[in-house]
């Protein structure tokens, strides 16, 4: 499996920003990841695709150290993340947008937006942020969880853009949203990529993934079973569909 990953990543020019080698993770006593291995290159948009329960979300949570019990290696910009606490990992410049969006109900929209502290230079300015997400300015005073699902998703993405993080981990931003909103979020993600963010996107929605990604990592039973470029995916949809069981 690991040889597969290396063969897929080695030839290209851009260096790996995030390199995951033989990652194992546990929730309490049950092992969820079994030797995940893949690289994320600077400036690329990579998706993790696979069935429910394959271990995609756990991979993101392991990178962030939210899943504490892990073995193997996660190297981000030359630093080992395994063994570090969540806040230390975040401070190295990784922004995390969880699946459940995690908008705080006891905070206003504005407080939600400005909650994550600026960790380093290079984040979006407040003006740029409101330009990208105009709704959030208008609704700044209302309770965070009073927003619609789509607006909450925008807020969850928006708040990690100010911090100066260069790597964004987005967990299923399209989940449970109307097609028109999914399209809007797709546009935003493309724009973020154009601005130079490196993005790891967990996605079940293949159509959505195809529109935005450079490469796709297929996850099954807590391990990487295939890695395809976007062109390979387009050429051979059948292969991926068998993985996903659709």
């Amino acid at each position, binding site marked *: 499996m690991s040889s597969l990953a290396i063969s897929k990543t080695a030839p290209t020019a851009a260096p790996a920003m995030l390199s995951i080698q033989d990652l194992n993770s546990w929730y309490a006593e049950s092992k969820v990841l079994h030797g995940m291995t893949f690289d994320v290159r600077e400036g690329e948009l990579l998706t993790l695709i696979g069935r429910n329960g394959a271990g995609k979300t756990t991979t993101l949570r392991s990178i*962030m150290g*939210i899943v504490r019990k892990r073995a193997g290696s996660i190297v981000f910009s030359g630093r080992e993340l395994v063994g570090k*606490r*969540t*806040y230390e990992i*975040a*401070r190295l410049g990784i922004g*995390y947008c*969880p699946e459940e969006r*995690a908008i*705080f*109900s*006891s*905070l206003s929209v504005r*407080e939600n937006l*400005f*909650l*994550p*502290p600026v*960790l380093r230079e290079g984040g979006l300015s407040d003006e740029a942020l409101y330009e990208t997400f105009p709704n959030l300015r208008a609704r700044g005073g209302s309770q965070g969880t009073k927003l619609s699902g789509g607006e909450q998703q925008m807020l969850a993405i928006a*708040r*990690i853009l100010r*911090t100066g993080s260069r790597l964004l981990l987005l967990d299923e931003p399209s989940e449970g949203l109307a097609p028109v909103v999914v399209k809007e979020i797709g546009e935003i993600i493309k724009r973020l990529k154009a601005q130079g963010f490196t993005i790891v996107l967990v996605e079940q929605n293949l159509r959505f993934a195809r529109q935005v990604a450079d490469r796709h990592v297929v996850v099954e039973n807590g391990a990487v079973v295939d890695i395809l470029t976007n062109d390979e995916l387009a050429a051979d949809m059948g292969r991926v569909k068998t993985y996903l069981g659709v």
Partner: protein
Amino acid sequence: MFEGITSQLLFGQVLLGLINGSFYAMLSMGLAIIFGLMNVVNFTHGAQYMLGAFVAWLLLNFLGLGYWPSLVIAPLVVAVFGMVMERFLLRPLQNLDHLYGLLATYAVALIVEGLVRYQYGSTGLPYDNPIPGGINLGFMFLPYYRLWVVVFSIVTCVATWMLIEHTKLGAYLRAANEKPQIVEAFGINVPKMMTLTYGFGVGLAALSGVLAAPIYQVSPSMGSSLMIVVFAVVVIGGMGSIVGAAVTGYMLGVVEGLTKVFYPEAASVVIFLFMIVSLYLRPAGLFASKESV
């Protein structure tokens, strides 16, 4: 039935109730803050309140430092004690069933109370009133110090409320109450925040202790029975609400004072009766938010 009740008695008891309420409010606020972030019911709260009064007494008798410097120093000393306790006792227990954290705070309370009692005996130690005198309001005599306690505690509670509801620091605290892992994933040192928050809650308890020293005598057991009443107050208000805890504190203090006027036999249990009724009518608490059930 109420013929024998003079306005002097009535207002006197209401004021006394407000003073008790001041302590209930400050103590239950500290408890709610600690519980909200750490999910620990702090059974050391009463002992830490007692330590506040006690450190003030020690400062006076061994260093000659009077009430005013003690009002600042004693809470800081006890808060440092609390932070050490959080860091080296509660933090290692954080990932276990919360009952271990609770029992650990109870154990510390036993040790602290036992040691103080061993060293200084169970009888109360007097502490001089720093603002003697008072004012005659016509219907009653109002001692200045009691007025000071009520005003000071209201200011403290309002300031704490402002800090939590209207500052960035407060936003971190509120967010971490809901989803500590996510807040940590934003690069915020949540473990350190827990230590500081525990220190803050403990400091509030100790501050109440210093305030109490000139009114009640300083004794090892001054905190434990008070703490149980404060538990009832917090149950009535609902664990989820910090403001609710404070408001309920004042309210029940006054209710208790009024009971002393009209039916003195029930004064010691009226708060518990309130708790029973409120558990029946509002199982989640008067000021409960959705999550706190």
